[in-house]
């Protein structure tokens, strides 16, 4: 898979499907691989469109050390033949999904930044 040049500098990103639990209601969104994020972040609009129900709260620390709390949601998430049910995510006013280490650590990922491509495996 190729890095997306929609980001500057280009970033590993892919299309993922988010679905409301126990429903066929789903959305396809662009997701950037974010090894710095402890948890996957979805756009706030996905929460509205999928009518997700909050399940908990977490305290989130951002890059500048600011801490705020956010509600979490359980969603089904799939991409490239991988499927994860009931993933706990948070939402933000952001266009794309940030795929955090809660998901990335379940895969073997090879980032070839030099050639702007990457691979995902589940060995």
């Amino acid at each position, binding site marked *: 898979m190729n890095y997306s040049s929609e980001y500057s500098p280009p970033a590993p990103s892919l299309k993922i499907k988010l679905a409301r639990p126990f429903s066929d209601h789903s959305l396809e969104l662009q997701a950037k691989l974010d090894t710095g*994020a402890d*948890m996957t972040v979805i756009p706030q609009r996905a929460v509205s469109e999928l009518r997700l129900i909050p*399940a908990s709260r977490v305290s*989130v*620390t951002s890059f500048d050390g600011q801490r705020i709390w956010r509600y979490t949601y359980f969603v089904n998430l799939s991409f490239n033949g991988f499927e994860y*049910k*009931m*993933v706990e995510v948070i939402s933000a006013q*952001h266009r794309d999904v*940030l795929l955090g280490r809660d998901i990335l650590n379940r895969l073997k990922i090879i980032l070839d930044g030099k050639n702007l491509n990457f691979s995902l495996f589940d060995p």
Partner: protein
Amino acid sequence: MVKTTIEVDDELWRRFSLLVLREKGERKKNEVIVKILKDYVERRGLLVEEQQLEYILRIEEEREAFLKVRDELIRNPVYNGKYVAVFQGKIVGYDEEKERLAETVYKKYGYVPIYIDKVAPGERQVEIPSPELATL
């Protein structure tokens, strides 16, 4: 619309007024304060439609119920360190895996506001250092 009165430190207000005057012009303080309030609510995920707000209020009630018994749960080896689900003020399930617990309780009670949290002191902490989400 609500009209309200707040007490603010003189010096802080003077500096705020100066900044607003410099950046926005005269008679714009109200507009800036409304924007600050809106940003505050938005950043905490509460600038949502009515249905979401309803869910959030129900989750907060369940959370209150969880917080009332949290210390007791921490002392109980059956629950300590595990995830619990709270529905209608009662513990309705627990598991080491939050995903499995969510699946179980939503299957049993439907996809409705059920509070799920870890039995541990304090709030769960996560780091999302991506600068693009500085305004989380």
